[in-house]
């Protein structure tokens, strides 16, 4: 009596996961939306920086053309802050996972209204879970991955996290107004980041004082425009 069936599967799950991120990018390009992903340690100032950037964006874009997906273990606090600007928004709570993955973003896009909703957007901001390591390992198909590291995290941030630094497209050193009172050598941080990642532009900003924001915004605007053309 046959009690057992041997079922051949032959699926490479690593390859499948890698293809999923590529699938997301194809979706964004199909919808004509530029996707900017913000990554960085908890408290590095990602959300505050995004608030400042959205404020600036609203001079060039309408609120309904901007989307925001916030990733956090818990709470909707970050998304509530960005929602105040009238942009399309959705919060993902991972419930414990330290990073966003493709299925999270797929669910968020569905909640926003799917491809049709994406088509209405010119730019979509994804704010990953506050974590300087794991999110960098899980691409979400973004046109630009922006690493946010603040001076209060210490001068050694970049050399201690070479992979995160290497895979980023844009590097932002935030809270530069604190460098002097704390005694942080920003030049050392810049050197380290440049050595690890020669191609990523580095921006020194303070989301609080506004220092460096316009230069960062102009660069992001360039990314948005060229991503939407391609």
């Amino acid at each position, binding site marked *: 009596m046959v009690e057992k069936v041997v079922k051949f*599967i032959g699926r490479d799950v690593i390859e499948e996961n890698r293809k999923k991120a590529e699938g997301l990018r194809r979706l964004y390009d199909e919808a004509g939306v530029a996707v900017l992903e913000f990554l960085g340690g908890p408290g590095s100032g990602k959300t505050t920086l995004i608030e400042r950037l959205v404020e600036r964006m609203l001079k060039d874009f309408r609120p309904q053309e901007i989307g925001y997906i916030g990733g956090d273990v818990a709470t909707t606090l970050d998304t509530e802050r960005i929602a105040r600007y009238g942009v399309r928004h959705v919060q993902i709570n991972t419930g414990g996972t330290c990073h966003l993955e493709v299925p999270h973003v797929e669910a968020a896009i569905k909640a926003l209204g799917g491809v049709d909703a994406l088509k209405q957007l010119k730019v979509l901001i994804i704010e990953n879970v506050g974590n300087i390591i794991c999110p960098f390992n899980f691409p979400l198909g973004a046109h630009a991955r922006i690493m946010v590291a603040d001076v209060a995290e210490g001068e050694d941030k970049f050399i201690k996290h070479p992979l995160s630094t290497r895979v980023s497209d844009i590097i932002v050193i935030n809270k530069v107004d604190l460098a002097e009172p704390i005694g942080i050598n920003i030049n050392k941080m810049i050197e380290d980041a440049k050595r690890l990642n020669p191609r990523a532009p580095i921006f020194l900003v303070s989301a609080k004082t506004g220092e460096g924001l316009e230069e960062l915004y102009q660069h992001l605007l360039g990314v948005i425009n060229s991503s939407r053309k391609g």
Partner: protein
Amino acid sequence: MHETSIALSILAAVEDAFKETPGAKRVTRIRLQVGMLSLVDPEALRFALKVVSRDTPAENAEIEIEMVKPRFRCLKCGYEWEPSDEDIERISSDPQLSTLVHINPDVLASYLTCPRCGSNEVDIVRGKGVIVHSIDIEVDEGGGQGEQEQMKENSRPPGGA
């Protein structure tokens, strides 16, 4: 590194196959082929898979893991070769190189040269992935086509009908 994420993907592939099988009761064995360039720790993967498969049809399945050696092919002259055990040890124990390879094994290809023609254009043809090869499924005594034919066979008296 992130063996839990991989375990969840394996479980999804296993559950897809399980659902396609008529009369399936439970999964008794999962055969995995783990490429050495995936730098996945097989024991961490085994543990993660055991944990995530609790309360699923794959709970308590035997997990068989075969480690697959990488195989490279020169895109210029077509020569194929496998690295020595020493090469593999060197890659896995170098923290920067092993992390880069883990995220994108194709990065390794840029460090390789063809032993025959010296070209830098090398492709990795095997050893990057984690393949869910096959599973053994315990099926319901009443289910499955092949199974019913087997029952007819057994019920025929010896010497023919």
